[in-house]
């Protein structure tokens, strides 16, 4: 079911693409946009949080980019080859690339970045690198990755945020975290770091020596820091802000802002992350340890209501553990519809005695709080005795890390491949205290482990698909976690900002192609 708003987006996106092709890009102009929250630093790889990725993705680059369908596009690597056994990947680098300080970019930078820098600092890159046996620069502009075994999602791991290229000549042999260049990041990207007025603005300026002919069109991008959601909306309304990246205004503001004259909206540009909202359910103890209880929770929740009321009809309600932007989604499972009757039956069947359970909302803003309130009310209406525990980010982290919860909201990125973004939630060897991002629910199923592990290293894709379909069926029955929604995070912008979203990570690397029709 699509709401009118969702339809409007599609229409706007269509209009955008036709308009974009029809017009000759103009040069010049600065775009004012928002970064929320203020990032802790801008050195990608050293810091992997979302705001750093968003800003620094325009300063740094990876070997590849990805389309909105998550197909790889050339970036620093102009071409690449995969061996037939799926174990050797050869990247041919562009030869005309220089760092912002004028030094040339070479294969040695790639080897340093991957083998030294990321291995030491970057946990998400480490997850990929554990499959890599060796990284060699065969000449100045060729790099060969040899894997220990085939790894399905390898080619999708080179996005700038995950696998950024950092300058060897500035970092090699230094204490990375205290490197003096951290304050003034040096990348290869279309924009250079200019200034950071903490608490106010991060200013990026055009890289005049950028290797892609004619790019970027813009003179610069200003990332404003405005801590209050309402104020951010106002800033967009009164015209000081041109672009609202996804998640920077409250969902409730979106219908109003998108209805303004000369404002366009796109849902594209987050396919790579495709955030998947879930309800952790503690599989270890309490009522939530019972499969029937977890199923009852799924039936009790009115997920379509949440989508329509809280998410403006954007995003979609998944059948099971795999979202639409992950590959290998199973589309023939019985949906967990809003069915309070069925939920009550299941609760009766298991003999739920009214034991009180708690629900931990995600402390990321109003929408999430409202969502928790709605779910709490849904659960109460089928007779589950539930109360909300408020926490801030610190408390939330600690409770999840210590498994001290019954139900808890979260959302996870899918990273374009089940082996990167999904299996981590269900693999039993991923059960470890201290992190809110692993198998927090404590689900253990040998068959699921086998299937996920086999699928990650199976080659080619057809083999992977069969394994993933089976795993989805098991998960659908067991309900280790509650699958809430694949979130729709639209980007709002003035319609005179053209060609803004050109990749699966949206504005994270999108300003290089953007131009202003003013």
């Amino acid at each position: 079911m699509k709401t009118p708003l969702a339809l409007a987006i599609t229409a706007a996106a269509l209009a955008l693409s036709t308009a974009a092709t029809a017009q000759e890009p103009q040069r010049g102009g600065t775009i004012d946009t928002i970064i929320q929250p203020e990032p802790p630093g801008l050195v990608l790889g050293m810091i992997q949080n979302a705001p750093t990725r968003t800003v620094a993705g325009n300063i740094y680059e990876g070997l590849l980019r990805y389309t909105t369908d998550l197909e790889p596009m050339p970036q620093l690597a102009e071409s690449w080859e995969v061996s037939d056994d799926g174990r050797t990947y050869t990247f041919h680098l562009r030869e005309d690339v220089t760092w912002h300080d004028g030094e040339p970019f070479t294969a040695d930078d790639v080897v340093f970045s991957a083998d030294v820098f990321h291995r030491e600092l970057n946990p998400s890159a480490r997850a990929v690198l554990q499959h890599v046996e060796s990284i060699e620069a065969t000449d100045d502009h060729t790099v060969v990755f040899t894997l220990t075994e085939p790894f399905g999602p390898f080619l999708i791991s080179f996005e700038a945020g995950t696998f950024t290229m950092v300058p060897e000549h500035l970092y090699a042999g230094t204490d990375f975290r205290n490197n003096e260049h951290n304050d003034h990041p040096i990348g290869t990207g279309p924009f250079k770091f200019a200034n950071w007025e903490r608490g106010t603005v991060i200013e990026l300026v055009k890289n005049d020596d950028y290797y892609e002919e004619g790019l970027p069109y813009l003179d610069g991008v200003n990332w404003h820091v405005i801590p209050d959601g309402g104020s951010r909306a106002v800033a967009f309304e009164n015209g000081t802000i041109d672009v609202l990246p996804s998640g920077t205004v409250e969902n409730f503001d979106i219908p109003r802002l998108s209805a303004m004259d000369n404002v366009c909206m796109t849902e594209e540009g987050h396919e790579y992350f495709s955030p998947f909202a879930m309800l952790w359910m503690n599989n270890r103890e309490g009522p939530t340890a019972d499969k029937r209880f977890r199923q009852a929770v799924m039936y009790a929740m009115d997920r379509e209501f949440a989508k329509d009321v809280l998410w403006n009809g954007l995003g979609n309600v998944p059948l099971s553990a795999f979202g639409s932007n992950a590959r290998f989604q199973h589309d023939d499972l019985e949906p967990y519809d809003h069915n309070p009757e069925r939920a009550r039956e299941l609760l009766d069947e298991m003999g739920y005695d009214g034991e009180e359970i708690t629900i931990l909302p995600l402390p990321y803003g109003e929408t999430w709080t409202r969502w928790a309130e709605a779910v709490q009310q849904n659960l109460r209406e089928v007779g589950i005795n539930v109360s909300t525990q408020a926490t801030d980010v610190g408390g939330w982290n600690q409770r999840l890390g210590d498994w001290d919860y019954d139900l808890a909201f979260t959302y996870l990125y899918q990273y374009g491949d089940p082996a990167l973004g999904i299996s981590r939630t269900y693999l039993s060897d991923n059960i470890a205290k201290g992190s809110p991002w692993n198998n927090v629910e404590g689900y253990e199923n040998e068959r699921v482990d086998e299937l996920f592990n086999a699928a990650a290293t199976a080659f080619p894709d057809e083999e992977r698909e069969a394994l993933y379909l089976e795993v989805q069926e098991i998960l659908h029955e067991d309900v280790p976690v509650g699958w809430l929604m694949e979130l729709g995070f639209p980007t709002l912008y003035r319609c005179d900002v053209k060609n803004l979203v050109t990749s699966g990570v949206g504005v994270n690397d999108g300003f290089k192609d953007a131009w202003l029709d003013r």
Partner: protein
Amino acid sequence: MVYARLVLMRLFKAVIVLFLIVIFNFLLIQMAPGDPAAILAGEAGAADQEFLDQLRERFGLDQPMYVQLWRYVSGIAMLDFGYSYRLGVPVFDLIMDRLPATLLLTGTAFVLSLVLGIVAGSMAAARVKKPSGSLIMALALVFYATPLFWVALMSVVVFSVYLGWLPAYGLYTVGAGHTGFALVLDVAKHLVLPATTLALFFMAIYTRMTRTSMLDAAQQDYVKTARAKGLKPGTIQRRHVLRNALLPIITLAGLQAGQMVGGAILTETVFAWPGIGRLMFEALQQRDYNLLLGIFFFSAALVIVFNIITDVVYRLADPRIKGAS
């Protein structure tokens, strides 16, 4: 000389108080659930044990609490506030970065509220039991009773969105490249809404206090003496009533001035004012202990500085204190 000794003595006491505050806050924050490493890991969206251990070791969180406390306190003794966990920047630099904005905001609001409050309060005192006086007091009461953040939201909606007169957020127009007088003007424009919002509540307090204090002072014998001299009412109000009525206001204002820094948290959040109030709230949510402690230290120091200033001003205003010591 008297002042020098007074200030010296107060500073000495202040050091002790600050020392206690550091310890108190340190222990308080230790009680908070979640540590900065976990939050940083959380922000990164992915983390393994190695990553967490690296962070904890880097921040010294793997040490027992008393070691951490000792390190922190001895650092402070050398005016070393450590590094912000999240931002990786010296805490001192961060605070110094943000402090001017806070001082500008609270300073303006303070002066505004004090001046307007005293004027309104004197007017209300002079018009006691007249409709105009009651109106002033009613307004003051309404300002006092209205939640600060509500005023902030409403003023943005009205003055920035509908009327478009004033900027809604920030310290200056980013990218406008203003310098010199243009920059001053720009900042002043940005200052209007947050400063007024913050000032309204305090203005209400001063208005009420001034009125009460003036009415009290007007009852005093020396005012009768002044009238018996044949002085004009204006002169009596100014020279005899107001001057004496101001004494309790000085004390109150001194207390408020220190508290304003904390009270600015809401205003700074709504108006995206890059001050330390907002920094504090962010630091708290991110368990950025060093930063949080640093801010607490500085805001407490500000309170103390304001108290000392208040004392000195009070002594200047009231000759009796000087004579007594």
